[in-house]
């Protein structure tokens, strides 16, 4: 991986983290207010992100011969199986309790949020347990 791509990838991560901070999605309270159906702001954040990503996914392969950072475009895996549903159900239960999902957890680490930091460490641990014994 070339240094320029490495730096450019850091910037893409930073753009994502900046968006999460600006949209208050780094705050578990905002996420839990949505899940309790009290505040639908999160729907606009997610809807906006999906719209931009969908436009990019549809247009980029027609305009570019290959992605800027990669050698070839991938297709969506699309395979429907039990694991996806079971994993999503478990993820949702944890998300409903703490209001923290992986990307905001990492961004909140940068914001120095101790409570979310605890959740972030636990997310790593959960991912490790999955890979070690259930992979």
């Amino acid at each position, binding site marked *: 991986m070339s240094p320029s*791509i490495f730096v450019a990838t850091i910037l893409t991560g930073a753009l994502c983290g900046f968006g999460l901070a600006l949209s208050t999605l780094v705050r578990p309270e905002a996420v839990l207010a949505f899940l309790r159906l009290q505040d639908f702001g999160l729907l606009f954040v997610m809807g906006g992100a999906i719209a931009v990503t969908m436009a990019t996914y549809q247009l980029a392969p027609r305009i570019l011969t290959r992605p800027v950072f990669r050698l070839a475009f991938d297709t969506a895996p699309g395979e429907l199986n039990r694991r996806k549903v079971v994993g999503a159900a478990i993820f949702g239960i944890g998300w409903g*309790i703490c209001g923290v999902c992986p990307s905001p957890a990492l961004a909140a680490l940068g914001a120095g949020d101790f409570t979310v930091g605890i959740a972030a460490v*636990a997310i790593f641990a959960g991912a490790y347990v999955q890979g070690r014994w259930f992979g």
Partner: protein
Amino acid sequence: LTPYEDSELPARLAFVVGLVLAPLVYLAAGGSIAQTVSSDLPLMAAAGLLVGFGAVYGGGCTSGHGVCGLASLDKASALAVLTFMTTGIITANIVAALGGR
């Protein structure tokens, strides 16, 4: 820019580094992010374990299935999103009803 082939790990690490650094820049630029107050750290940790386990077991989270999966019109991702939204909404309301934060 020279594209990378199979060096997925450095690419993922670079993305994570950016994700962690961005809020620092946001704060330095005068933005503010309120700190989370939780009286129940063990519960946060237990919930985090479920989030990490479930996200990897199910092959995606709100970003993977939610944003990228739905944006690529992936049916399996749509089912995953429907599933975690349902369990998330039910769980959050149960926690609220039990007097959780």
